[in-house]
């Protein structure tokens, strides 16, 4: 993988996207992820009602076909984990929730075994807890407060 990946933030109507370009200034997008600008502050179901929980919603992650198989998608996920760890130090964020667009996308996450778990059988939503992220090596080097902050 080359060293010229560069991020620019793009603000879309329905989400914020971070894109990977092959070199600074390039307009070619070779990968991206999009998050919902509204963090989840609670979940609600018909049986038990509302339950407060803070989650960051990953809406989409994609890699140009020409660049697939180089680990770019996985690195993008790791970058997002870092950003979530940083924001979770002072916001009530407990995890990353993603909605897989289809079974193929769901399988992509599950087959990589990166810690995302199905929240229910047959659900297309997968969850990675911040508590799991905090157990990663070298997280302390990010300057995060201790767990439970």
């Amino acid at each position: 993988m080359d060293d010229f990946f560069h991020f620019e933030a793009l603000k879309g109507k329905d989400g914020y996207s971070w894109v990977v370009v092959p070199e600074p200034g390039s307009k070619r997008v070779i990968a991206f992820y999009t998050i919902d600008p509204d963090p989840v502050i609670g979940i609600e179901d018909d049986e038990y009602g509302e339950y407060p929980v803070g989650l960051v919603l990953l809406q989409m992650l994609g890699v140009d076909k020409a660049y697939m198989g180089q680990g770019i998608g996985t690195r993008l996920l790791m970058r997002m984990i870092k950003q979530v760890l940083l924001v979770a130090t002072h916001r009530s964020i407990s995890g990353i929730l993603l909605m897989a667009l289809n079974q193929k996308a769901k399988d992509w996450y599950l087959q990589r075994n990166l810690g995302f778990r199905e929240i229910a059988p047959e659900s297309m939503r997968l969850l990675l807890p911040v508590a799991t992220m905090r157990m990663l090596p070298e997280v302390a080097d990010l300057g995060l407060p201790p767990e439970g902050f």
Partner: protein
Amino acid sequence: MGKTTAKSALPTNELDTVFKGRRGRVLKVSAAEADGIRNILANPNPPTPELKAAWEDYIRHAADNPDSNW
């Protein structure tokens, strides 16, 4: 994804910038999904070997490319 327009790079703690001024929202889920979310958060797994390896690769890559905003 909605139509996008170029914007200058955000600072390191970029999610703060995104969430600033946002009230957040309540997500409608099924009862089974709500149970699953609560259970996973109450019983977080340790990182898988694959997650650890991916994280370490990312940390190395970011350190090797300090100007690339990884």
